[in-house]
């Protein structure tokens, strides 16, 4: 009985897949237009650019963490539009990012992690040679259907120390937001004020002898203006935060405001010592990174003439 039912389901499934040649043609056109778009935005075909990225792809065309360049292309097609057209990102100092393993430490803001996507886009589209950055995602996201699939295929990994360590020893570029959910769900009155930094990234950097590149993201705080945060409701819904964003109730306000993003990449910082040191000692080193990012933010804000252009 079970098999008949599933056979029937499979028939429907295959019919849906096989029937419209039109759909396939549409998909073909979509792929072609993504190729064209990326070529126009990057000045060279995607295939040429990705070929220069050092990737550890297995024979199946997927790397051990599940990154699939084919998926990355589609994701990048969308992000490239945001990067170049919607947020018109200004990228400063990207040449500071050294080759080989590196930890990018950035401030986290804007309710939705567009900042991470744009840093990724900058590293792929503006850095030379191009890099695919790996970010660590919340465990919660991994249990969501589609989200988990998309994240893994575009090279994001679950945020556990073992994964970070493995990626760094592989020579990858890792993006970490030490503020985590605390930073991204800040209300508007606390914009551009760094919240408490986690210490894990510093232990990781010392242990794997990895240079840290501080990154300041200016422009994300204004994309969604959050006026309050319901902590208890968030806890109830098992979500990291529950921000109140008035613009969501205005038609069209669901899109982030088209602020102009400015990414500032600082000089690499190197730390030595014992990764298992006491929190207070690690904290001092973390404080240095935090101060660097805060002063980069302050300078970036001073130089900014207008939020939207």
């Amino acid at each position, binding site marked *: 009985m079970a098999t008949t039912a599933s056979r029937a*389901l*499979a028939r429907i*499934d295959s019919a849906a897949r096989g029937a419209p040649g039109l759909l396939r043609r549409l998909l073909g056109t979509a792929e072609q237009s993504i190729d064209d778009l990326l070529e126009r935005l990057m000045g060279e075909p995607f295939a040429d650019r990705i070929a220069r990225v050092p990737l550890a792809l297995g024979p*199946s065309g997927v790397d*051990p963490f599940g990154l699939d360049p084919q998926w990355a292309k589609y994701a990048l097609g969308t992000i490239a539009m945001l990067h170049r057209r919607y947020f018109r990102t200004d990228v400063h100092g990207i040449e500071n990012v050294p080759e080989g393993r590196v930890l990018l430490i950035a401030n986290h803001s804007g309710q939705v992690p567009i900042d991470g996507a744009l840093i990724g886009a900058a590293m792929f589209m503006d850095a030379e040679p191009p890099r695919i950055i790996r970010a660590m995602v919340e465990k919660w996201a991994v249990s969501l*259907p589609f989200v988990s*699939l998309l994240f893994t295929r575009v090279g994001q990994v679950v945020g*556990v*120390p073992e994964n970070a360590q493995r990626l760094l020893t592989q020579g990858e570029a890792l993006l970490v937001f030490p503020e985590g959910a605390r930073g991204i769900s800040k209300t508007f009155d606390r914009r551009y004020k760094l919240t408490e930094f986690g210490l894990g990234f510093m232990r990781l950097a010392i242990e794997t002898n990895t240079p840290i590149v501080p990154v300041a993201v200016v422009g994300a705080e204004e994309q969604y203006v959050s006026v309050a945060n319901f902590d208890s409701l968030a806890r109830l819904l098992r979500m990291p935060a529950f921000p109140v964003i008035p613009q969501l109730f205005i038609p069209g306000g669901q899109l982030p405001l088209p602020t102009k993003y400015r990414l500032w990449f600082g000089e690499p910082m190197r730390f030595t010592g014992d990764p298992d040191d006491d929190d207070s000692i690690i904290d001092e080193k973390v404080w240095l990174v935090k101060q660097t990012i805060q002063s980069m933010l302050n300078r970036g804000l001073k130089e900014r003439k207008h939020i939207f252009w």
Partner: protein
Amino acid sequence: MSLSVSATERTGPTTTTGGAVLITGICGRLGKHLARVLHRERRVVGVDRRSFVDKPKDVEHAQVDIRRKKLKDVFRAGDIEAVVHLGVMHDPRASAADHHSWNVAGFSKLLEYVAQFRIPKLVVLSSANVYGPQPSNPQFLSEDAPLLGGQNFSDIRDLVEVDMLAQGFFWKLPETETVILRPVHILGAVHNAPSNFLRLDPIMTVMGFDPMAQVIQQADVVHAIHLALRPGVRGIFNVAGNEPVPLSRLIKVLGRQRISVPYSLARVVLRRLWALRLTTFPPPELDHIRYVCMVDDRRAREVLGFAPRVSLEETVRSVDEGRW
């Protein structure tokens, strides 16, 4: 069978003494395979309560239950140099009491005799499932990762316990070289959940999930056991086969139909089917097709000298071979 032939073509391990290998659960498919490989180079004694059909002539088979006293006679009779424990029961339909008495009580008995007769080598076939699929798993679990397999799937707690019992043996009896092998999903003619899953037609997957997976062919598992029998080898080894691939690629290799079902629906349906005894997959096993449970096999490659011999394609296709 071509696979077992290729498995026997290896250069033999460096065992010089003529003692016997005692294999528990020899009548399982993996046990038979191992017996066929080992009996050419050393004496093989099998223990299994089932009967051994088409047994090679020189393999001795004692048809005893490992929980019975008679097991001691097998040890007493002679010159056993190594024990390979494959006789783990994992029948999701069997009762918890059965599971416990067989896996835990039976295995404790076995350990008792290993200690009493000072057997120099003990190889236990555990499984990477003892780590359990979780959203918070690192992509590659090392041997010292916590064994959380029973957390969401209480039926396999006794398998975790077997692994723990064997671990206790490391320091309880340091003169015995204890090896615990934790292979990833074993594919082949074996009747286990991953092989049965890939034999489905169409294959059901969970919508929106396509975890990376590692699979290993049964011949490679036999090869790993063979390597573990070498003197001097001890410790825990994760054993992975070929490079990890997304689950969807495994299905593509087989060329089967694939239907993806939303998790909530899949869970309800599977629970119903399970209650009606229409499926062999207990509902918690759905997590295996949602989350990663992959292992870091660096230690097996470096210390054990293990490398998979069967290609990924062959490994996956072997689930359809010889459905006997």
